């Protein structure tokens, strides 16, 4: 009880960049008196409080729920999207992972499709556009039938939930040497491919999402597996296999031609 709290001093090497078209650089900040119970972001908060009190610009970083579910945070910590903890977002990382004297490098998620807005903040709206191209079941409000009229085998429902757990953070993109968004797309395609509700738009969806992903400048998958390794929600690589199957199936057997995705300035 009331054990003397251990504290430590660490150095944070942070990517600072004024704006999208400005050059950036690393700046080192000392975080003193950090406790193991502090979250990594609370250590950043402490540095920011010090900076603002001195009249200097705070380090811009995206965060919101701070419990690993909203997908807002997008830090690459020591080269790893979301940092060293398995199956966790950056906001769930705690300082107990570090020791006195550590120097920790923080960058934003890096990908061509995620331009930097400021410091550690990036623009991930490409993922929303991929969703708008086909990441849904077309059912208007009021058009649904009785819920239990659709029976779903428990194992299918569980597998769909595993895929649906994706928080859309984009760590998979940031970790991939090709900056591919295949794990993100495959999670949504898999969720609906596994459920009867997704059936009617099965081909249309996979073709549209795949096409939009390419238009946004995401790369291709070359089976590196980095995406699965960093995914905070443990979305499995097997979903990409399913995405490929769905895509091939749609290409060869579907009556759907590639649907024309009508998005601003991105029509072919």
């Amino acid at each position, binding site marked *: 009880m009331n054990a003397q709290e251990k504290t430590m001093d660490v150095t944070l090497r942070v990517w600072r960049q004024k704006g999208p078209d400005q050059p950036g650089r690393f700046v080192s900040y000392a975080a003193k008196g950090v406790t193991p119970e502090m979250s990594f972001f609370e250590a950043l908060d402490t540095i920011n409080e010090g900076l603002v009190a001195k009249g200097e610009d705070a380090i811009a970083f995206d965060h919101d729920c701070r419990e690993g579910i909203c997908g807002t945070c997008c830090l690459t910590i020591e080269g790893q999207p979301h940092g060293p903890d398995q199956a966790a977002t950056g906001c769930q990382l705690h300082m107990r992972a570090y020791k006195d004297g550590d120097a920790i490098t923080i960058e934003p998620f890096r990908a061509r499709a995620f331009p930097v807005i400021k410091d550690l903040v990036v623009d991930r709206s490409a993922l929303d556009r991929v969703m708008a191209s086909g990441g849904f079941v077309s*059912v208007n409000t009021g058009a649904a039938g009785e819920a239990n009229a659709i029976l779903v085998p*428990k194992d299918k429902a569980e597998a769909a939930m595993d895929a649906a757990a994706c928080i859309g953070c984009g760590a998979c993109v940031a970790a991939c040497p090709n900056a591919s968004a295949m794990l993100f797309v495959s999670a949504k395609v898999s969720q609906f491919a596994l459920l009867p509700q997704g059936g009617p738009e099965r081909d249309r969806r996979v073709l549209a999402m795949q096409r939009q992903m390419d238009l946004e400048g995401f790369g291709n998958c070359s089976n590196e597996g980095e995406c699965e390794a960093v995914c905070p929600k443990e979305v499995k690589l097997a979903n990409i296999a399913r995405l490929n199957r769905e895509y091939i199936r749609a290409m060869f057997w579907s009556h759907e031609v590639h649907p024309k995705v009508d998005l601003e300035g991105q029509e072919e």
Partner: protein
Amino acid sequence: MSLKLDAGIPDGPVDKKWDKHRFALKLVNPANKRKFDVIVVGTGLAGASAAASLAELGYNVKVFCIQDSPRRAHSIAAQGGINAAKNYPNDGDSVWRLFYDTVKGGDYRAREANVYRLAQVSNAIIDQCVAQGVPFARDYGGALDNRSFGGAQVSRTFFARGQTGQQLLLGAYSALMRQAGKKQVQVFPRREMVELVVVDGAARGIVTRDLTTGRLESHAAHAVLLCTGGYGNAFYLSTNANSCNVGAAWLAYKKGAGFANPCFTQIHPTCIPQSGEHQAKLTLMSESLRNDGRVWVPKKKGDDRAPGQIPEAERDYYLERKYPTFGNLVPRDVASRAAKQMIDEGRGVGRTGLAVYLDFADAIKRQGQAKITEKYGNLFDMYHHLTAEDPYRAPMRIYPAVHYTMGGLWVDYNLMTTIPGLFCLGEANFSDHGANRLGASALMQGLADGYFIIPYTLGGFFASSKLAKVDTSHPAFKAAEQSAAGRTQRLLSIKGKRTPVSFHKELGALMWNNCGMGRSEAGLKEALAKIPAIREEFWKNVVVTGSGAEFNQTLERAARVADYLEFSELLVRDALERRESCGGHFREESQTPEGEAKRDDANFSHATVWEHAGEGKPPIENREKLEFKDVVPSQRSYA
């Protein structure tokens, strides 16, 4: 009293009111819908579902959120589930019982007609979400599974592991993005509403700040829907996400919208305790855990043995002891107060003594660890990430924290505020939960408002109003932009010594100590004296770095803290005026001999609706009398 508070509740029996009203509402014909522009602020369950549904009908919708994507609104963090009166378990549920439980759970401070409607549309919500592909939990036969939640003796809660809010929001977000793809909705992420534009007495638009560039933008419409969530962050530490704020609702209040029952705040009994001064937020552990977890403290004061060392006979499972009928599943307000009692008696546990145990040992013994993982795996993982302790082996330590706000903008039966054309949906309004919200009812209300109520009532408003043509060239927009720019400038020009966060912390501590789980006249009066002093210092000594013309999180925070410094005074004033205990509002002067909340129906069976009287003037109190015909108020008992 100067606000006109006509709720417009239809006549007739409670179970016929909504049908009757839907028929009475005028319609906008399909070809004319495209002539109407609608602004939706916020993309949580209420906002996303409303925007998608209205776009499907053919209205032109613009939707705004402060997050970088509509999918990240704080509904995403709701864990446990969503209630509906499906009665799939055949355990005696019905629309009437859900209605009854919700009115009683709210300690008889909600409108009967609204609550009945909520229960009535609850089943259609489940149908809609299933059709969207929301992966709810199922049993081996493939049918939907249910679990129990506090304040009910039936299992009516539908769930997707401990991520129900996420899955429901992604369903609504998907529907929204489908409409965005069709260009029926324009999505504006990273935008904060900084002004409400009222023309000829009606809400006709908003001014937003583009959080990326700082640019102010005017948007005109025929109606504005605020779906902007609750104000729990007035307490600084809460389970709310960092960006949750009262800004939009506060702007509306200042433009003439009544603010109802701000003192009705919910303190959730099962959150992870604070670990230190640095803490930025608190994390909820879902109420669903009380299905299988048993809450206890040592019988002996100051017993500092490890939980495993305390024998069964020396533990006090106080909820089971005090409330044998509901046991660990009493409503949130009751469970939180009971925890506070134990801690006040010196029987709290853990390093700080500010916690009680939530123990799964019996459930694991009975059902096996695999079953517990299936039901709560992600919550156990979340606890482990935060505390580095393994809840499969040792009990969780939990403590109450501010979680939800039942109060909000006053709305009539059509969800319209006292400003014509300004509607308010979801947690941001005051309508359905009275003085205490039951678990798994927030998701239900957000989606009910967005999917199944506003699509009807908004059409009725359009069809029966004469709205002149107004676009952003109207002088009211210029004036609103100037006022917003002036406010930003004022914050930037102070260049004081203290950070916005330091003021927020100071305010939050005062609010928690004087207007938290227990509220007394003396404490509330003290807070009323201290808040203006903090506010005054803020406007003299805050430092906001950077400029208004860039991405500037310090500026965003400062503006939100400035709102809380005004709003919290209203919250405390409301708590002071309500000299009774009810639901989450516990006045220490008003309790039963057993320490339960003692209501005063003779004097307080009303919603208190506050009206802005101008800067520096005390707000005006208005009242909407509550009438109970179908659920007769009694002293709430869960024993």
